[in-house]
Structure formats: structure tokens, C-alpha cells
């Protein structure tokens, strides 16, 4: 049982970028354990992304059913577990998105599989593969061994390169879904989506984040992000205050980002926030307080009022310098 099954997510017919990283991780793991890679796609009306997934050369197991339309864990987990058994998977994983974190542990329990959340890397080969993952808000990195017959995991998408297409397309397998939607004890009511023209936080090359120091006015933050064609992030304080949507939070329990450039404006730099952005290539901190902890991780620190400094920087960026 050394096959690897990766559950893939799609949104509005397109495979999520985070899942491409998960496929990349799955390929690497399959090579380490000497098994085949299989992919699973669950949802409703997903024929197009399922067909697109064949390009990765792995068998794609598609479960297309109304009960799976909203990704409810109660419906998805048993289907995923069934696909894992059918594909002889000893390793079952996916991206550590909110959906992955919701569904995979439930599927793992059904498979009696121990699980490692938010894997950064694999180490070793064969049955002895270890999962490297962050603990204590990323202050510690642990190598974890799982002793159950089936092992489950989620990967941190920023730590794995997206898979590229394979030479020959993979097969497509339609999975018969036996879920009785009427018997489900979970009912989808609504999804209030935060729509944006900007790139997705976890995929953006540049992220500009605002914190308490914005005093609620994110316009300077957004203007700089837009000038750099980047995404806008936020500290927990800004989201708690209701200034920006929860979807913008960067941190230990928010989004983890690893852009080329991260600008932290009016953010003090609490441990929990650093956990979400210290993987950025270049970190800039703009803060009125010279003692703010953020300056300890910043490559470039500017002690200044962000309401003046950010517009000044935005103007220079736009002017091309």
C-alpha cells in the first residue's frame, strides 16, 4: 500500500494553485515511497477541472455529486476515504487550505490514519518517511513519524513547487458516490465571499499588510499594494477591529504567505503574525515605534508614520523611479 493520493481543490472550474503545490508534494512523496500518484477531485459539475487534471499524468478519481457541491466535511470525508482504499493509498494528503484542514482530518480518522498538519518538507524514504512541520507558531520545526498503516497530511502550499504537466495524460475514473444528501446532519446555508480583483494572498508576489497603526484606514496600504500589483494582508488586530475581512489575516492561524516582498505597515510584529510571513524573501517594516518587534525580522526598517510614508513610496513606485 504505497500509493499516494492527493485531494485536489477547484474553484469555479479552475484547479486551485495551492493544489498544484500539493500535487508537486505528492509526486515527490510518491518517488520517495516507491508508489503511484493518484489524484481525487470532489464536487459538483467538475468535469472540466477533472479533465484538466489528467495533464499531471496521475489517475484522477472524480466524485461528481450534488451532496459534494459545498465541500461539507461530513459528505466529503467518507468519499475521500473510499477513494483512498480503492487506489491502494498508504499516504493521503492535500493542501493546508481551510477546506483541507476541515476535511482531511475527518477522512484520516475514517482511515485510522495518523496525520501531520502543514508539512514543510519530507525526509527519508520508504515507510520511514518523516514529515517536517512547524510547532509553537513556527518557533520550532519538528520531524514527525506516523506509525499507522495509512498516513495523512496537509502541506503548506508556499513550501512546495507547483507540479508541471507530465508526458502522458493520466486516466479518469468516475467514482460512484453513495452519499444520501437527505441523511446528512450538516446543511450548507450560505457563503459570504470576499471578492477581489487582486491576486490571492498566498499566491501574490508582493503582499502589503496593515495593522493597528492604520487606525482603520487601509487606503494607503491598498494603494501601495495596487501600485505593486500585490495582495493586501492584515494583522489580527485589524481584522478583530472589523476594519478588514478575516480573509486578509496573515498569521499562525490565518494565512501563511511567502512572497518576494512583504511590507508590514503599522504592525508591531507579534509572534503569531511573524509565523505567517517570516518566509518572505524581503521584509519591509514601516512603523512609528522604533522598538516594534517587527524590526527584528525586517530586512529594511523605516521608522515613520505610514500615512505619509506609504503614499510617498506608492508615488515613487508609480513614477518608475
Amino acid at each position, binding site marked *: 500500500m504505497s500509493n499516494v493520493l492527493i485531494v485536489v481543490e477547484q474553484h469555479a472550474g479552475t484547479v486551485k494553485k495551492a493544489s498544484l503545490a500539493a500535487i508537486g508534494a505528492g509526486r515527490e512523496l510518491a518517488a520517495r515511497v516507491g508508489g503511484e500518484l493518484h489524484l481525487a477531485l470532489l464536487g459538483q459539475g467538475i468535469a472540466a477541472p477533472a479533465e484538466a487534471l489528467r495533464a499531471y499524468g496521475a489517475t484522477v478519481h472524480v466524485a461528481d455529486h450534488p451532496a459534494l457541491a459545498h465541500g461539507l466535511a461530513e459528505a466529503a470525508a467518507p468519499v475521500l476515504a473510499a477513494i483512498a482504499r480503492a487506489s491502494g493509498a498508504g499516504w493521503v494528503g492535500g493542501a493546508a487550505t481551510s477546506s483541507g484542514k*476541515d476535511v482531511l482530518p475527518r477522512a484520516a480518522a475514517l482511515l485510522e490514519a495518523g496525520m501531520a498538519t502543514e508539512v514543510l518538507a519530507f525526509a527519508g524514504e520508504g515507510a520511514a518517511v518523516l514529515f517536517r512541520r512547524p510547532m509553537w507558531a513556527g518557533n520550532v520545526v519538528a*520531524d514527525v*513519524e506516523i506509525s499507522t498503516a495509512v498516513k495523512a497530511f496537509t502541506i503548506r502550499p508556499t513550501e512546495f513547487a507547483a507540479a508541471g504537466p507530465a508526458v502522458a495524460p493520466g486516466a479518469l475514473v468516475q467514482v460512484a458516490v453513495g452519499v444520501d444528501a437527505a441523511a446528512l446532519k450538516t446543511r450548507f446555508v450560505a457563503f459570504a465571499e470576499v471578492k477581489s480583483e487582486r491576486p490571492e494572498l498566498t499566491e501574490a508576489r508582493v503582499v502589503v499588510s496593515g495593522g493597528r497603526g492604520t487606525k482603520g484606514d487601509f487606503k494607503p496600504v491598498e494603494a501601495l499594494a495596487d501600485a505593486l500589483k500585490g495582495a493586501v494582508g492584515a494583522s489580527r488586530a485589524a481584522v478583530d477591529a472589523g476594519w478588514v475581512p478575516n480573509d486578509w489575516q496573515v498569521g499562525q492561524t490565518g494565512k501563511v504567505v511567502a512572497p518576494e*516582498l512583504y511590507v508590514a505597515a503599522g504592525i508591531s510584529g507579534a509572534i503569531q503574525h511573524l509565523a505567517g510571513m517570516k518566509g518572505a524573501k524581503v521584509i519591509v517594516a514601516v512603523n512609528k515605534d522604533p522598538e516594534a518587534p517587527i524590526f527584528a525580522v525586517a530586512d529594511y526598517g523605516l521608522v515613520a508614520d505610514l500615512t505619509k510614508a506609504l503614499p510617498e513610496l506608492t508615488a515613487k513606485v508609480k513614477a518608475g523611479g
Partner: protein
Amino acid sequence: MALKILVTAKRVEDPESKIRVKPDGSGIVTDGVNYKLNPFDEIAVEEALRLKEAHGGEVVVASIGGDKSQTELRAALAMGADRGVLLRHDGALDPVVVSALLAKLVEQEKPDLVLLGKQSIDDDQNQVGQYLAARLGWPQATFASKTDSLESEAEQKKQPGVKLAADGKALTVVREVDGGLETLELSLPAVITCDLRLNKPRFASLPGIMKAKKKELKDVPAASLGVELAPRVVVKALAEPPKRKGGVKVADVEELFRKLRDEAKVL
């Protein structure tokens, strides 16, 4: 419409304490480290109390650990929980074992709802609630939050974020997910894991702390529950992540712009 609620209270390292790895990588240095109730569990306890205050019922708080975990149980009792249960176990745990123990406790206590923090801030695994729900065959709602902000009147009035249906048989839960807020309805009994913005936990009052001393705190050996206690997810080695090199302070925006463009080349 009374609800019997089981809620977890894990003892974890205080995030303000500096976490250092021992030189041999076998564990973290515990000297000088302070401990507290897992912040996400504290939110779960608060939500349990609000539901009880709104609908009546009982809040039973459980922890798995040694003697010292009694501190976190007493803290939850001081906030207002009715009874505590310590599942006594001094060895290493993992989500497989914890969820199995909690499932046994659920069999005994028969709650309508289990509330847990979405993750504990030591292992950050974010699995126990989901595992438990699967073991019980109960519906789950993870990352529970609410649409009212923490500055709102509803929050000041300590209204529950999780809403009980008029017939008392279902709960409506708002979840923080990638891309926004999702609303689900769960039939009871159910498992809910709690996220940051579900509520602001209350401070225990002095009368609350005094009352807590007299509340029941049962001490049950974990080994007596018929669960395999050996962890299946084992930490083999710990290390500190590579530290970032220190940076520089720039004098003004002009210098910052030039360095980003010419030195870092990220513009």
C-alpha cells in the same frame, strides 16, 4: 432547550514565553516557561458558558494531562463551567489518542455539543475536533466565528456566536474559511471547533475563583478508559528554524525605494 456541553481545556506553553529547543533536539526547554489555558480552548469555554446562559444546561470541562492540568480546569471552572474532568495521563499524546479518549468521555457524559479550540498553540495540529466528529459520526463545524465584530453590542452583551434553533435541535454556525465566511446548520449532537473571533473570553471574577474551589473535579486514569494510549504521531526530532539575517534601518522613503529597487530587486 437546555444544552449539555463538553468543552476542552488544554494546558499549553504561554506564547509570550520564549520557546527554545534543547541542544539534543529531544524536546523544548521547559525551565522558565509559563503555562496557560490554550487560547482557542478558552474561547470554546466562553462560548459554552454563553450558550448555557442563554439556554440553560450544563458545561463540563475536560483536560488530558497530569497534576498541573488541574490549573487549567480550575481556570475554566472559575470562568463558570460546572464540573471538571481530568483524564490523567503523563505521557505524550497525539490527536489520535486525544480524540479516542474524548470519544469515551462523550459516551459517558452524553453531551449535546462538544466545543474545542480549533488547534492547540503548542502542536498546532488542528485535528482533534475533526477526528472526534468522525469517531462519533457527528456533524462538524470547524473555525467557528461570527459576523458581529468583537466590538459589537452583541459581543458586549455576551451573546453566543453559535445560534441554537428555535426547536433546540440544530445549531447555526458561521465559519472563517479561505475567501470569506460560510454559514452551516448542524443537527445536534455536533462538534464545533472555535476560532479567534468567535468571542472575547471573560476574566474569572473573584467570586468565580472562590466558587471553583468547591466545584467537582473528577480525576480519572486515562488508562481505565480502554483506549490504546501509545501515540501514533511521534516527534522524532526538534530544531529551531533558520533565523533571518538582521536587516537595516533606512532613513527615509527615498532610501527605502532605492534599496528595494537596486539592492533587493523586488520592485
